[in-house]
């Protein structure tokens, strides 16, 4: 059992159109796509939104990691299909799969292309208190660390004879339970250690801070943000006018 897919949310420095954008523009991207995904529960509009993310992933040079994050959703996908098909319909199940894929992809793009330090700076520039911005960026940086921690616990449990490689969906879900308590305890302990380390380095002693780096919202960031807002407006318009939209847009599976 491997939690390697969580690395698909780990920032990697690269030279690309997406990496060079301001973190705030990328936050708008994540929110735009999340809101758009929540607007619809039909297959075709959600498929269009999902497909529109792919060029961004390719231009952002994060295709490999993005595929990993989508692959990591396989359990959830199976869960959604079973529950929705049993209680609602297969059409709705497929639509929900696209919805979850859009939301995960939007945040995967954000996490993969935003440097945690830049994220803190952008939050501060949005007038968030420094302590909040720092904690947020720290939490963000700890996603892969927690994934490592979870992998260590899995390795330790398997090394002591715990059978985690049992086949079957129910078994795989059951296998996750013994992992949760130690992972929570380890994470709390780590949080205390980090807090002590920060305090011992005089974190919060000075109210006024100056910054070595500053970030600027440039012209390309404005263009990208306006483009995203326009997309969101179009989607909201489609949602409002959905009853008069062409038939193919509201297509459903016969079952």
């Amino acid at each position: 059992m491997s939690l390697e897919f969580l690395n698909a949310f780990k920032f990697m420095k690269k030279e690309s159109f997406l990496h060079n954008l301001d973190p705030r523009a990328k936050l708008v991207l994540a929110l735009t796509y999340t809101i758009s995904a929540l607007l619809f529960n039909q297959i075709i509009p959600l498929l269009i939104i999902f497909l529109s993310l792919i060029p961004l992933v390719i231009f952002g040079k994060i295709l490999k990691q993005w595929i990993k994050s989508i692959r990591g959703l396989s359990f959830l996908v199976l869960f959604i299909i079973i529950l929705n098909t049993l209680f609602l319909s297969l059409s709705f199940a497929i639509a929900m799969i696209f919805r979850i894929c859009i939301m995960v992809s939007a945040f995967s793009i954000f996490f993969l292309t935003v440097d945690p330090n830049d994220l803190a700076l952008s939050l501060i520039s949005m007038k968030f208190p420094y302590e909040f911005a720092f904690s947020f960026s720290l939490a963000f940086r700890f996603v892969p660390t927690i994934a490592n921690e979870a992998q260590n616990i899995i390795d330790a449990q398997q090394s002591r004879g715990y059978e985690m490689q049992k086949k079957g969906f129910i078994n795989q879900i059951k296998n996750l339970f013994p992992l949760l308590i130690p992972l929570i305890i380890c994470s709390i302990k780590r949080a205390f250690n980090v807090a002590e380390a920060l305090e011992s380095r005089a974190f919060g002693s000075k109210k006024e801070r100056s910054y070595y780096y500053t970030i600027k919202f440039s012209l390309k960031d404005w263009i990208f943000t306006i483009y995203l807002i326009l997309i969101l407006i179009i989607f909201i318009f489609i949602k409002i006018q959905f009853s008069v939209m062409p038939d193919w847009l509201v297509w459903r599976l016969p079952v």
Partner: protein
Amino acid sequence: MITIYISKDLPLIIIENVDYVYPNGTVALKNINLNVHKGEMLGIMGKNGAGKTTLIRTLNGLIRPTSGDIYINNENTNSKSIAELSKNIGLIFQNPSHQLFANSVEDEINFSLKNLYLNKEELQIKTNEILKKFNLDKYRDRSPLNLSGGESKKLAIASIICRAPEILVFDEPTLGQDAREIESFIKLINTEKEKGKTIIIITHNIEFAFEFIPRTILMESGEIIADGPTQNVLNNNFLTERSSLILPQTRQLSLALQKIGFQDINKAVSKNDIIEYLINFLRNKTTSVQEE
């Protein structure tokens, strides 16, 4: 300096042409070939990043070789789950906090024993026995995360030894341990060796390896660069320099004595050899002074 071990018995562990490449493309193991016989004690030494930990993690299937085969008891490990392999191989991690996860010291031992499918009574008896043996009884209800470094290392070892695996693999067991703790660890491995267990130890502690481990392999950049009796491997200046190791103090002492005229001290390799050599020398000296 490669020594080939020839034995009539089939080795307990056979590693054949094993390579391992991490998903990010880092080559961690290159064409590893190694045989370990039952009851043998093997040391693995080398620089940080040489591939030592990766090698031992392939033994119980935590890492599956990219190519090559590993046979334990003449069975290919590829077809077995980690849990199945762990019946034979007890791997003690370098960092005990990576190995301990239960709510209490007692639960930690229970977890290992439960996977042996013991009944409730047997489980309790065995847990009590292990806690007493490792002197952890007084910490029974304490969280493993609140133990001291030495105690948590002891608990990590206890949690593996209670399963009585045939092969014990230790990753840096002496790291961060004081002299008394190292002493009790040596006692423990001697007891396990007497029971016929096969022991593999990764260590940077050259003095410890020199005194207690009969055979050592040296690794560099994912390859085995030397395999032989520990005293031969670690007395070789070329190999120790290549692996960023410092010559053992006994070797340094014998070289210093050689420089001031004790030519035949070169034959003395271990601490006991040197002590014996010096006692004999002083005895002869005293006798010759008395005769004069």
